[in-house]
């Protein structure tokens, strides 16, 4: 194991023939090229999407009212969702998605991919156009296909108690377009497994390492609910999780010596990532059902009527 691990360490790999000839693999991925943002960029995109949706809904309402001669409410009364509302509603459904995956024992890779599909989709689309409770199932179904965990639509609906398979399938194209058909998601789980193996060079006792590894996996699952996957690379997230997962001084010491051993030249970068992820984890508050209900109630008034089959449009 140590030999493969060493050949992967940056200091050595830059001199081996294989990596010298080829550009870094991660640089060519769609995730690296199209799905990395700064916090500011994320905010800009979401604000633009939100503003666009509000405008769309407003004009559609006017049209609808003109057509149905309904004057019961004016557009000024409609309270639109804010970016924060939308985000909270998404996180609420993303959490539900995670529970579902646990319940029907889908692997973490499918869960992570499905959540990332939702996140990517709702970056450029808004809950006012597409309700996350519908998008959720489509994302999960697409994720089972993309991660080679094939389920037939009937099995899928039966396991997850979805009443109509059409609602899952009808959105497949829309969601795929929202993902720009870039189905490939790179998970921190995989990187975490690599670190778990490589850490055995400094942590000789397996039991605490295994406990640590389990904690890391739980942290990764929690972090996918935040913006962190849009900001950092999978391996950066994984290593940061190893750094923050356990405050025990012995473990901290071991991780520290591991980072000195492998990533001495990048230590300051790693520490700032770790600090950001640490504070993200500390500030993370799950969205309560009540909050979600409140948002959902106001969503009923500001959902785009163009997507409502009962609308007169």
């Amino acid at each position: 194991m140590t030999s493969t691990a060493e050949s992967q360490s940056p200091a050595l790999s830059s001199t081996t023939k294989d990596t010298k000839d080829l550009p870094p693999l991660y640089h060519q991925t769609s995730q690296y090229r199209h799905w990395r943002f700064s916090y500011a960029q994320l905010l800009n995109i979401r604000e633009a999407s939100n503003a666009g949706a509000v405008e769309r809904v407003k004009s559609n309402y006017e049209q609808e009212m003109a057509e149905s001669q309904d004057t019961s409410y004016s557009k000024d009364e409609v309270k639109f969702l804010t970016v924060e509302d939308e985000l909270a509603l998404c996180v609420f459904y993303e959490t539900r998605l995670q529970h579902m995956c646990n319940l029907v024992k889908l692997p973490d890779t499918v869960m992570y991919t499905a959540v990332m599909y939702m996140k990517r989709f709702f970056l450029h689309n808004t809950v006012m156009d597409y309700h996350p409770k519908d998008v959720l199932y489509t994302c999960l179904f697409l994720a089972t296909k993309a991660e080679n965990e094939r389920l037939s639509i009937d099995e899928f609906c039966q396991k997850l108690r979805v009443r109509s398979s059409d609602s899952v399938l009808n959105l497949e194209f829309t969601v795929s377009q929202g993902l720009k058909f870039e189905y490939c998601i790179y998970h921190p789980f995989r990187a975490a497994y690599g670190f778990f193996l490589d850490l055995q060079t400094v942590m000789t006792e397996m039991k605490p390492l295994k406990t640590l590894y389990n904690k890391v996996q739980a942290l990764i699952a929690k972090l996918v609910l935040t913006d962190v996957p849009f900001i950092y690379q999978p391996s950066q997230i994984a290593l940061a999780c190893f750094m923050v997962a356990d405050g025990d001084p012995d473990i901290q010491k071991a991780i520290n010596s591991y980072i000195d051993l492998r990533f001495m030249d990048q230590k300051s970068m790693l520490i700032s990532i770790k600090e950001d992820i640490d504070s993200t984890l500390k500030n993370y508050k799950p969205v309560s059902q009540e909050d979600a209900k409140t948002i959902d109630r106001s969503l009923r008034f500001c959902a785009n009527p163009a997507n409502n089959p009962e609308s007169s449009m």
Partner: protein
Amino acid sequence: MKRSATDDFQSSSQKRALNATHSPAQTSPPPYYSNASPASITSASPQYTPQHRRSPRESKKYVGCSKISDYELDDKLGEGTFGEVHKARRKATGELVALKRILMHNEKDGVPITAIREIKILKELHHKNIVPLSDIAVQKGNRSRKERTSIYMVFPYMDHDLAGLLENPSVKLSVPQIKTYMKQLLEGTSYLHHNKILHRDMKAANLLINNEGILQIADFGLARGLEEEGKEYTNCVVTRWYRPPELFLGERRYTTAIDMWGVGCVFGEMLKSRPILQGSTDLDQLQKIFRLCGSPTSETMPDWENLPQANTVTFGPYQRRVKDEFSAYGPQACSLLDQLLVLDKNKRLTADAALDHDYFWTAPLPADPSDLPKYEASHEYDRRKQKQDHHNGNGPHKPVRDAPIGAPPHQALPSSNYAGRHGYGSNQAVRKNDNDRYRDRHHHDKYDRRDDRDRDRGRDRDRDGDRHSRNDHSSKDYRPHPLPARPSTTVPPAPSKRY
């Protein structure tokens, strides 16, 4: 396998280096935002930034994802189990493309998992020898009219594929040409294998070639990512003639070596100008493999007797005669092929090792792709005019010797021989096209009767002996000698359910 762990760190440091070189304006890239540069200056995702400067209405348009109306559809090139392929022109730029439609009929489970895999893989690959997925076009169905939505994958149009080129008797590949195609094939394959992708349908018909001498691996309909070691996959992959022996014996824990067997078969095919192992059934194929490569022993194929199907077959004993069979093509070619067509998957050359083989480093060296002969592209014919010519009796069915002197060899060829043999991935295309050809014959009975006779004779002829006569024949009549129908890709059964 374990690439993700540290690659990214390496990547991030190199990314910073890249940032520094490519955007000198950005004097000090934020240390840890290596992957998240400030929104305004150097966008990490350039495709997105302009999108959000547009009006909100327009912001629903996605780059790399167009409507089908952006394309002007042309001839259908073929139809297969996985999709149909159309030639088309992108209206905005006029560039020719091939549209591969993902068939949705009878698709109860939505977008087929094979299509998702194919798109997923193609979207991640960027290499000069891998066919690029340039766009996805969507045709929205109308639910009330029961129209289903269709997805088209858009590829640049390439008029030749290696199988079509080799079947064309007026095209004779030179040694430097074979070397450069082979080198490109190996470079593409090496890239795939570095990315842990198994192609699983390596064959001449899936290798597209353009007039710039560039070869590209196409049709990722059966491709998938390699997972952890020991993972079992379906063994119903790879077109029969290119399928490695271990798959016939039921191996399910296969490796990248399965693609390398196909590469070996393609190499042999380039040397001999015809497929080297044309089994008529799976059993016949295995027999042909063992006749060429020797019967399996514990030495040549360790553990072969433990493979699930091993006890169902007994052949031989045969001696290995790869070197004898191909001795005419020189010691280096012979040695490379000998190391590719190896029964033991662990001893078969890898793509990287094959690229280091002396074959590519001894005279004559691989040609510069741009120096290769430029064949007249079949799509440059005005097909309608061609049809008219048919009816006038002076169509493209003209003997080669009547072609203008110095005309590129393809000019005198009926385009129908090429049109269907593209490797964009409709696997039935070949068959269908054969039928077309036969149907055309009846149309032009007067001109083609002799061809029919030849075709029938060709069927009975021993394939090993007919290369010569085929070329003789072609000097009188340019029509390529009919080959037995190429087997189409095995359609894999639905992957077994895991839950």
